């Protein structure tokens, strides 16, 4: 069974759900979740790019030749996904902190216009 | 040296201009009186008036008034030196630009002198006069420009010379529309009805002259007389071909002046903005047509 279409469609779905989430409301938490979904979708897609049919785990245990098709799946996307997940974690945490700030300042999470004529501190 | 030789001629033209101008004034009054079925003053009345004025005491409101009054007559007399009398000027030049601008110094002097009197009626009259000048200068200049286009010279002597050889060569026939325009402008230039709003005795107490007394008034009279001389001579040179002898020349001047006095005698006064609008609308458009047809384009 070819998993590529299934994975690709699920990646696209995740991304699409995320986009819809962004568009459909202005709750900060909703945005955070939506962005998380989008990132997950992209990560799935990223993993997919490295995949090749019948590829082995790219851990070199013996000698091999670089001539001819590589026996391994591409390891780089996996590395990228790892990094991307870490970054995603960082930004999500930050966003949650911002959500807390928002709740403190406005009492809710509905992110509307920036209030005018407010005192500004340096 | 050349200038010294010129002096007697200058002196002569000065008195000629004043003398003929005063005579014109006298004739004009006489003519108006006849139109009104009156006996009228004698033709030499203007001389009497001027001499009387000089014989009186007078008041001044300061040096500016003296300066302005002197400047005004000097400007007009200097203009007379550039206006051809029988194809001749003492300075040897009849530059139209000089004439148009030198006349202005006369008006400036007059304006300055009377405003210095401190009577608000005077600047009021001057403002009217200048506004009117705004009105008549443009048509006049346009017609003059048409002549410059045709003759290729801005020298009045040349323009007058171009019309020698009988009435058929007169620019009156060549520029008939322009002549009408200039006649209308002339009426305003000499400040006769319907363009006498700058004097308007019953309204602003004779405007510029309100504070003029004695010799100041006399100088103003002389100013008017030289102005009449210069302006009628201008028209005679522009349209009526100048003249070959002084008598003819003066005759033409009288003709021009009396025409305007006739209009004066039967018209009522315009309001200022009416006057200017009238000048621009009628004299201006006539002059414009004249210039456009002469030049054949912009």
């Amino acid at each position, binding site marked *: 069974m070819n998993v590529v279409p299934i994975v690709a469609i699920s990646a696209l779905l995740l991304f699409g759900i995320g986009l819809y989430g*962004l568009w459909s409301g202005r709750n900060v938490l909703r945005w955070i979740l939506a962005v998380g979904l989008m990132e997950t979708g992209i990560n799935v897609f990223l993993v997919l790019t490295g995949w090749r049919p019948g590829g082995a785990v790219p851990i070199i245990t013996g000698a091999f030749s670089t001539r001819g098709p590589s026996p391994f799946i591409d390891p780089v996307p996996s590395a990228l996904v790892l990094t991307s997940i870490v970054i995603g974690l960082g930004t999500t945490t930050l966003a949650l902190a911002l959500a807390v700030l928002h709740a403190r300042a406005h009492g809710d999470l509905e992110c509307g*216009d920036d209030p005018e004529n407010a005192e500004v501190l340096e | 040296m050349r200038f010294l030789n010129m002096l007697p001629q*200058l002196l002569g033209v000065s008195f000629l201009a004043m003398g003929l101008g005063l005579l014109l004034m006298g004739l004009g009054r006489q003519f108006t009186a006849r139109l009104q079925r009156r006996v009228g003053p004698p033709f030499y009345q203007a001389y009497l008036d001027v001499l009387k004025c000089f014989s009186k005491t007078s*008041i*001044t409101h300061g040096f500016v008034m003296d300066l302005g009054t002197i400047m005004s*007559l000097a400007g007009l007399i200097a203009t007379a030196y550039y206006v051809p009398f029988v194809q001749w000027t003492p300075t040897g*030049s009849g530059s139209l630009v000089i004439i148009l601008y030198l006349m202005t*110094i006369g008006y400036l002097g007059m304006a300055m002198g009377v405003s210095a009197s*401190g009577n608000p009626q005077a600047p009021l009259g001057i403002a009217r006069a200048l506004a009117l000048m705004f009105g008549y200068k443009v048509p006049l200049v346009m017609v003059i420009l048409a002549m410059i286009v045709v003759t290729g010279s801005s020298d009045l002597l040349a323009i007058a010379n171009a019309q020698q050889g009988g009435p058929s060569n007169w620019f009156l026939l060549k520029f008939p529309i322009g002549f009408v325009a200039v006649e209308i402008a002339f009426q305003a230039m000499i400040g006769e009805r319907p363009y006498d709003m700058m004097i308007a005795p019953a309204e602003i107490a004779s405007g510029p002259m309100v504070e003029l007394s004695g010799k100041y008034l006399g100088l103003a009279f002389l100013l008017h007389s030289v102005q009449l001389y210069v302006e009628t001579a201008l028209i005679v040179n522009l349209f009526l071909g100048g003249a070959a002898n002084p008598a003819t020349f003066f005759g033409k001047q009288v003709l021009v002046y009396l025409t305007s006095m006739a209009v004066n005698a039967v018209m009522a006064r315009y309001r200022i903005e009416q006057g*200017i609008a009238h000048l621009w609308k009628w004299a201006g458009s006539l002059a414009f047509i004249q210039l456009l047809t002469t030049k054949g384009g912009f």
Partner: protein
Amino acid sequence: MTKYLLPALVILPPVLGLLAAFLPRLLRWLLLFLTALATATVLVAVRPGEMMPFSAALPVDALGPALGLHLALTPTAWFFLVMSSLATASFTLFSLVFNDERHDSGIAPLYLALLGFGSGVFLAADWITFFVCWELASVLTLIIVGHRRGHAFSAGLWYFALSALGSLSLLAGAWWIALHNGSFRIDDSLVTLTGWVASGRAAAWPVLGLFSLAFLTKAALFPFHMWPAFAHAEAPDDFSPFLSGVLIKYGIYGLFVVWVPVFFHTPEGAVRTISGIPWPLYILGWVSALTAVVGTLMAIFTNDAKRLLAWSTVANLGYIGTALSAHSVLGTAAALFHLANHMVFKGAMFTTVAAVKWRTGEREMHRMGGLALRMPLTFMTFLLAIIAAAGIPPMSGFASKWMIFQALFEKQLVFQATALFFASTGAFLYLYRALHSIFLGQLSTRHEHVREVPFLMALPMVAFMLALMAVGFAPGLILKPVNWVLASHGLDAVRSNWTIVVGATAHIDFATLFGVFGFAAALVFLFFVLGGRRTKVPMMDNYTSGEDPADWGLTPERYQYAYAFYQPIRVLFSRIPLGATEALFARVARALVRTGSLVADGFASAAFSTWSILLGAALLILFGVLS
């Protein structure tokens, strides 16, 4: 030594300006005056040919071809520099006294720097140096004009905005040419431009347009004619003469430098002509004539002395532009001549108005009057200046106006000549009005104790008067240098000697003119002396229909006709939208601000931010698909 004279003229004044910032008030102004005087002296002493061009390259070839400081003293530059530096020396002498403790505007350091950059504009041999000096001069002017109150600042901002618009266009034009011939040098680019025009290359016109935009905005020609009314009027009083006399001439200088070579050295038939002159010049002619008319009318209607003079400046630049556009030796010479004259008489007028304001603190004309009795010398200066400004003989202004008209007659540009006559007559109207309202009529009781200006301040005024009369007597004083300029552009000289000028349709001996007027004046003076005794009466002893003014509580201020002076003319023009361009510019500015606020507010809203992600993504994808 002489090698460094040119850069010294440009760089030294700003450096001295920096120094002056740390000096006490009097020394600052003294330094300014001495610098101006030294500049004038040096420039009068040298002749254009004697000075070697100066160049110092900046090693930044990557930015543009041969950037650096390139200066050359061409005859044209020399003429403009000499005239402007002589005028400036007089203005600064006036400023020296004007800026006493009570009136100090504190601008001396900036003024000094401005002198340097001003010289730089004339001396620049490449467009970048030109642009740098030009732009810095604009900035300094902005600061000088607008450093005080809000109103003055918006005036300065008007000036600066227009100037920046023009100067950036200039830069673009210079680059356009430099991309083809690889040089920013003014002479090179003009050769190229002339070649383009001659060969009918389409790019010539936009380039010329870009250059001209800079010069037309600076020279305040229609439709950019409204800024002097703000800037000149709101500038410090002693700075206005410089602004109106010298600074505004930069535009004419540029126009002269670019247009004269381009249109005089293209072969016949290369450029389409209208009425025998190349069409751009023909359009310039009408634009200038229109400027003269509009400037005149605006001057007639204004009640503010400085504003009136500013509008008068606009009108005079219209004359200069019209003369320049006549495309003839006579016209070009007339433009230069009138420009030099305008420097003097407008300088004199602004100076006298400054002196009056210095003594009385008034600018609105209807609040003054009768000051001739208190400030006779100032009055005389103003009188001679307005005689010159109205183009009335025998002062200098007549000579140049006469030449302008001769140039127009020569090309039979009769309708432009009509417009100029109209403007000239109007000039007489507003100038008389200024003279009357400020100096004549009743002396207000508030100004009973006004005194004449001190000696040092009177000195420049006397100098102006002498200059006005000298040039009116002997136009050759200016026409000789003008002929050098013409020769340097390969044009014929105007036929003239010291006192006689030969025009296209007539010639005039100005000495005779001066003489006959003098003679007439002497004659009339004789009459005057022969006439009856005269007595001096007080100003309020007037014909008042027999009434005693005191009975009616009539004070001298109220017994003065100066407000709404030309109301009939105003009524006449009530339906003609004279302020239309001003209103148009204001409307454009408002529209821009409204668009701006739409942008600013629209993007600030929360709804937009989520939308813009989708919108932007869609936009980008569209781009991608299209590419």
